[in-house]
């Protein structure tokens, strides 16, 4: 079996680190990572608990294929209750620390309670200890990473930590690992900081063994890698342009949310696109993009490593930002760019650097700035509120200064750090918050891509593209093309994407493989690694079980079917241009069918027979 069979339970209140066996019955029902940790969280905490209290738990978890030779098998997730949404949160990250955790011999680390003063976990194979982090508190992610590497004198130490935004209470702070990979959404970093847990430093040298059928596993992973190598998206599009290749496509189909989702096309899109990142700058003749980069075991390598023009106003006298670092991916470029109306590639890259440096989600941040800009232009928010900042759409200065304030929770940055929902409520216009369940939208306007409206409305962690990415079918034609403006069939499409994604997220694999792989490519890899007879059908069933488990958590936390909705703007105000001109999102045509397909009653509650069928 590819699970290590071991969990580390860290009680921050008492300072103990205790090993315990993994519940193997749950592993066969929930696979690993997102599913398995959601099961533990559901069993161990009261869903109504205050997310930032000691009663919440914070789980770092790998999947059975994490750390193996499977392509992209380097993923790990952070699972907790979200302070941003009040829902269950699962944020998935790549980089190297997930594989390192597995190499150290652990499937999962469960943090509970709260430390009296700042600490970090040092994990070296079976040795686990909590060490003081008073000297790290107040440091950025990058400074913390450097300090821990220096202290332990181990360049191969893998580190995940929170930055100053999380310490300052930003509700969408993430956990950053390996300097610029992020468990980015839903404020999982805020929970980590609330426990006085600054960092987790891991060194694992044991290797990942325990494969059920080693020869079969080598054959299955090799065959699957060939599928990625033969597919134009995973072998050419993503390594060359990254996810940013989407900027022009989504703009072309008129689904590019612009200026707080008032419009659906951005005139500056081509200036901040994946193609633009390859173009030589006028000042020094060098492109924004330095190279692509891969996470552990990945044969796609979509990561962006970028530089900023040294003469740009944001970094003119700041040589610390002149080096290469994690560059823009599509969602960040959209939120920081199109949604705020800013098409200055260097400014966006600078803000992206700050998001990595101090660990806050560029999607929620960009969308919150966009809401602030709309409130400001309406005259509701004034310079008195913003500390003198002129929050106008298109202002790179306003955007970059907002990021500098949010990264440490200074001045108006404290308010921006609470997210768009709380900001818009405070200034009397809750309808201007482009959120579902309190979480900000990603980069696809559901008026132009109807299925995404249903995916957003029903996502178990609030507005999110990674819970059911029907864009793949509706725009890109993967696995087959559907019409983005049609609602028929979308309920089934959304459910199928949601269930399959939950399974992939629980395996230790990256969701980007699914632009080439189907469950038919994934099942043989899991089955060769793990006991349990892992077929495509079983994976789909496990995905559905996970989806319902998350739903049950949210219902118990106090959410209802009424929360499965979209902002009025998307349901009432028609798109102003493009193929969707005159259209709104027709959620009401899709939601009842979706509930029925899910086996839920009309109020969105799983029926008794659904629960029984899934063993919940």
């Amino acid at each position, binding site marked *: 079996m590819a699970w290590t069979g071991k969990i580390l339970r860290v009680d921050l209140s008492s300072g103990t680190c205790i090993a315990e066996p993994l519940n193997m019955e749950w592993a066969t029902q929930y696979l690993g990572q997102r599913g398995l940790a959601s099961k533990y969280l559901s069993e161990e905490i009261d869903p109504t608990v205050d997310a930032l209290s000691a009663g919440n738990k914070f789980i770092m978890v790998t999947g059975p294929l994490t750390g193996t030779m499977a392509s992209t098998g380097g993923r790990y997730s952070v699972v907790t209750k979200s302070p941003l949404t009040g829902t269950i949160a699962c944020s998935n990250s790549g980089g190297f620390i997930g594989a390192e955790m597995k190499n150290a011999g652990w499937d999962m680390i469960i943090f509970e309670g709260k430390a009296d003063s700042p600490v970090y976990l040092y994990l070296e194979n079976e040795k686990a200890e909590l060490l003081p982090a008073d000297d790290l508190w107040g440091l950025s992610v990058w400074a913390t990473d450097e300090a821990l590497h220096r202290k332990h004198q181990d360049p191969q130490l893998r580190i995940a930590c929170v930055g100053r935004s999380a310490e300052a209470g930003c509700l969408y702070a993430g956990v950053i690992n390996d300097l610029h990979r992020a468990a980015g959404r839903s404020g999982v970093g805020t929970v980590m900081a609330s426990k006085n847990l600054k960092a987790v430093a891991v060194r694992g040298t044991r290797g990942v063994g325990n494969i059920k059928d080693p020869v079969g596993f080598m054959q299955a992973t090799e065959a699957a890698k060939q599928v990625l190598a033969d*597919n*134009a*998206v995973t072998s*050419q*599009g*993503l390594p*060359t*342009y*990254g*996810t*940013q*290749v*989407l900027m*022009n*496509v989504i703009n*072309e*189909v*008129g689904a590019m949310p612009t200026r707080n989702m008032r419009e659906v096309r951005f005139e500056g899109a*081509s200036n901040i696109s*994946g*193609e633009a990142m390859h*173009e030589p700058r006028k000042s020094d003749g060098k492109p924004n993009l330095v190279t692509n980069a891969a996470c552990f075991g990945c044969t796609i390598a*979509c990561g962006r490593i970028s530089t900023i023009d040294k003469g740009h106003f944001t970094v003119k006298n700041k040589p610390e930002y002149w080096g290469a670092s994690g560059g823009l*991916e*599509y*969602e960040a470029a959209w939120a920081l760019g199109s949604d705020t109306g800013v098409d200055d590639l260097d400014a966006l890259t600078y803000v992206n650097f700050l998001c990595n440096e101090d660990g806050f989600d560029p999607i929620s941040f960009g969308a919150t700035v966009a809401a602030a800009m709309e409130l400001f232009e309406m005259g509701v928010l004034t310079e008195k509120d913003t500390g003198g900042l002129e929050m106008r759409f298109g202002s790179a200065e306003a955007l970059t200064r907002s990021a500098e304030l949010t990264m440490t929770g200074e001045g108006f940055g404290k308010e921006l750090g609470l997210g768009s929902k709380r900001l818009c409520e405070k200034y009397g216009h809750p309808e201007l918050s482009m959120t579902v369940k309190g979480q900000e939208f990603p980069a696809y306007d559901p008026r132009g891509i109807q299925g995404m409206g249903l995916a957003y409305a029903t996502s178990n962690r609030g507005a999110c*593209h*990674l819970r059911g*990415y029907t*864009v*793949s079918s509706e*725009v*890109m*034609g*993967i696995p087959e*093309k559907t*019409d*983005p403006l049609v609602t028929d069939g979308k309920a089934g499409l959304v459910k199928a994407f949601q269930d399959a994604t939950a399974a992939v997220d629980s395996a230790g694999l990256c*969701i*980007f493989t699914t*632009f080439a792989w189907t469950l038919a490519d994934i099942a043989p890899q899991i089955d060769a690694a793990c006991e349990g007879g892992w077929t495509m059908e079983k994976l789909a069933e496990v995905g559905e079980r996970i989806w319902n488990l998350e739903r049950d958590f949210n219902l118990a936390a106090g959410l209802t079917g009424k929360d499965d909705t979209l902002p009025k703007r998307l349901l009432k105000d028609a798109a102003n241009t*493009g*193929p969707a001109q005159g259209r709104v999102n027709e959620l009401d045509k899709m939601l009842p069918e979706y509930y029925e397909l899910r086996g839920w009653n009309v109020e969105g509650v799983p029926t008794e027979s659904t629960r029984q069928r899934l063993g919940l």
Partner: protein
Amino acid sequence: MHAMKVTLKLYASLTRYLPPGSGRHEAELDVAEGTTPAAIIDRYKLPLELTHLVFINGVFVDRESRDETELRDGDQLAIFPPVAGG
């Protein structure tokens, strides 16, 4: 037969197939009435396997309709290779 103007937009790895003197991603073309996306793909020698997504004014044109759908004056024809992200 009347001449019409259409805008050809090529992205990602297809950008290099734009005629000399084009903008970053687009060129304005004079074409005869009745011209189809397939005819333009042929004229600019776009590798067929890279013409994954074809849009006229943002609306997808499937592979079977590329040599049947006639462009109209002022149309925007955008073509993308296989791409995805998220």
